[in-house]
């Protein structure tokens, strides 16, 4: 029995090893293609941890494709060091769960020896994965975490290796609230909020933003992730006679809230956080009611943005969304920072360079990091018209 157990364990371990080997077989062919007189240097490896499966799988393929597009564009120009060094992007699925996210980070750090990690998709996964990179001293750029405690002041201690390229709700929400208050003349709102980390972070930020703008929050109505019908919540909100409804929620519930508001509170608008900033909501007949602060506007006519949209369409035959734009921009910024180093795989140098990097033209607009490593970029306050996000006026 004991021997059998050992054999089983050994087989299992062997399986794990082969499986990992198979999964990460590095496409290193690119290294030879650009040989110059001095000979090619090994690729700079960058890891992307993203939720391809599990609850948050709908951020893909855009999140992956955005980063991949930036890498491919850059490699096509030759690469670093006078065309001798290219970037290799290694993408791993974190299954939308924390422990797989941690394992992916450890794999990037210990096995692939990447220089920088992008991701993971979810804030809840980041809460577990980011400390791993922080402890190992590997720079991380968060590309879709918008909640509290990602950069600056983190629960797990110092987080100076973490950067955020995704517009935090702390920046976006106050802009949204300010614009909505001044244009709609808000006096009283009701917040409908979910019970997840993202929604609760948003709730706190909304609360403060409305207070700062002198708007009363008449009622806060919670729903659970397991609620299927949103009519009762809107009916309860209606009793307060609010000037607008605030949806501190993800896109799915937000769609239902929009529908109910259209039905029960005609002519009232729905103010939302980044959760509403989803292309899945565009077909919704009532999407025009929403007011949301976003990190990216498809309608922005900046050349950098239009070029990005065109390139993305050409390569993937699909429209990019904000997640594509953010991962693309994060990669642009990273490349720009790396160019300023003497050795691209020197993590300490890359970190320093990221801290001072500044790009005036990206799809997200002028981009740099704050001293707290948070993103500094314009906020686009948007609404929806003809199934497109358009600036809110």
């Amino acid at each position, binding site marked *: 029995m004991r021997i059998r157990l050992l054999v089983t364990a050994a087989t299992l371990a062997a399986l794990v090893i082969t499986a990992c080997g198979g999964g990460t077989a590095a496409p290193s062919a690119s290294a030879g293609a650009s040989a110059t007189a001095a000979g090619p240097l090994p690729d700079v490896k960058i890891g992307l941890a993203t939720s391809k*499966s599990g*609850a*948050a*799988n*709908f951020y893909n393929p855009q999140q992956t494709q955005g980063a991949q597009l930036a890498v491919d564009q850059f490699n096509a120009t030759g690469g670093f060091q006078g065309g001798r060094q290219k970037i290799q992007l290694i993408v791993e699925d974190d299954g939308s769960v924390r422990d797989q996210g941690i394992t992916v980070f450890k794999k990037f750090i210990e096995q692939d020896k990447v220089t920088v990690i992008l991701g993971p998709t979810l804030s809840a996964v980041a809460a577990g994965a980011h400390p791993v990179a922080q402890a190992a001293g590997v720079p991380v750029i968060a590309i879709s975490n918008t909640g509290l405690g990602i950069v600056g002041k983190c629960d797990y201690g110092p987080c100076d290796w973490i950067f955020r390229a995704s517009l935090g709700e702390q920046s976006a929400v106050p802009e949204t609230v300010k614009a909505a208050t001044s244009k709609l003349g808000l006096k009283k709102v009701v917040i409908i909020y979910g019970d997840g980390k993202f929604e609760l972070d948003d709730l706190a930020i909304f609360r403060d933003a409305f207070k700062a703008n002198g708007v009363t929050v008449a009622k*806060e*109505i*919670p729903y*659970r*992730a*397991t*609620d*299927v*019908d949103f*009519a*009762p*919540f809107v*009916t*309860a909100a*209606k009793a307060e006679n609010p000037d607008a409804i605030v949806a501190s929620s993800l*896109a*799915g519930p937000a*769609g*239902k809230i929009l*529908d109910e508001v259209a*039905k*029960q509170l005609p002519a009232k608008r729905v103010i939302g956080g980044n959760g509403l900033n*989803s292309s*899945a909501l565009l*077909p*919704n*007949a009532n999407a025009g009611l929403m007011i949301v602060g976003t990190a990216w506007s498809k309608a922005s006519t900046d050349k950098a943005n239009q070029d990005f949209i065109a390139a993305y369409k050409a390569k993937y035959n699909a429209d990019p969304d904000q997640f594509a734009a953010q991962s693309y921009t994060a990669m642009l910024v990273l490349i720009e920072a790396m160019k300023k180093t003497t050795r691209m795989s020197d993590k300490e140098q890359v970190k320093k360079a990221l801290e001072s990097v500044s790009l005036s033209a990206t799809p997200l607009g002028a981009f740099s990091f704050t001293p707290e490593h948070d993103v500094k970029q314009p906020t686009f306050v948007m609404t929806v018209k003809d199934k497109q996000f358009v600036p809110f006026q």
Partner: protein
Amino acid sequence: MFEQLYNAIFIGSIYALFAVGFALVFSVLDILNLAHPTVFMLGAFAALFAIATLGLPWWLAVPIAFVATGLFGILLDRIAFAPLRRRGAPPLSAMISSLAVTLAVVRVVELRYGGDFITFPAGTVPSFLIHVGGATLEGVRLAIIGLSIALMLVLTYLVRGTALGREIRALAENPRAARILGIDVERAIAATFFISSGLGGLAGVLLAFAYNSLDSRMGLPLELRAFTVMVVGGMGSLPGAVIGAYLLGLGEVASLVYLPAELRDAFAFGLLFLVLIARPQGLLGQRPADRI
């Protein structure tokens, strides 16, 4: 107040359609079919396929979804339950095999339609509003309430008044005796699954219509509710499940109106727990006979 009552009846109808099928399978086979939420989701996607891909009108998509999920139910039984039944495996095994099917099927749907929620093509879902006093009633919702009640009446007739229903009831009562009495047990089980899954799928289409929104995980929130509904109504009792469903709908809405926000769910599950302790047979179930 009236509006909240109407909200409660609407959501109660969806719960009822969902839970009745769940309870039916439980009463006949003692199985907790954890794939029932998947069937619910498949119903919505079957309708989407009919409308978006085949270009059919919504009123044709509804029966198509019913039949498609009903057939899927039979397939589910053949794949996940029949092999276990043949060797007399405990109900626990069936729970796990249905979970396995769920895992795979949800992923298949995600590969085809993506993981995010999607909508029916514009203009394919009917929509009209009725104004009653200060309240706004949506035609689709009224129709759903009506249809649900009608379906439950049909189901009651089917189980109580037809030969097939008698066979199903005999099977639920005592499978061995049913076999001895010459009932084609496998056929009756297939019928059970067809009805159960068909109703579950129908519930899925109707909810998807009500919000014009569907996604691969839309059934999961209903799973725990189906447990609650079954326990409150009495395990395996169909009328009990219907009453339990409406009570749950009412309870959820009432607790939203009258209870502090945080206590809402604690209240529902606390109640479920108490019912189990105080009256494990539920409102309409029969107490399992003393075993000695």
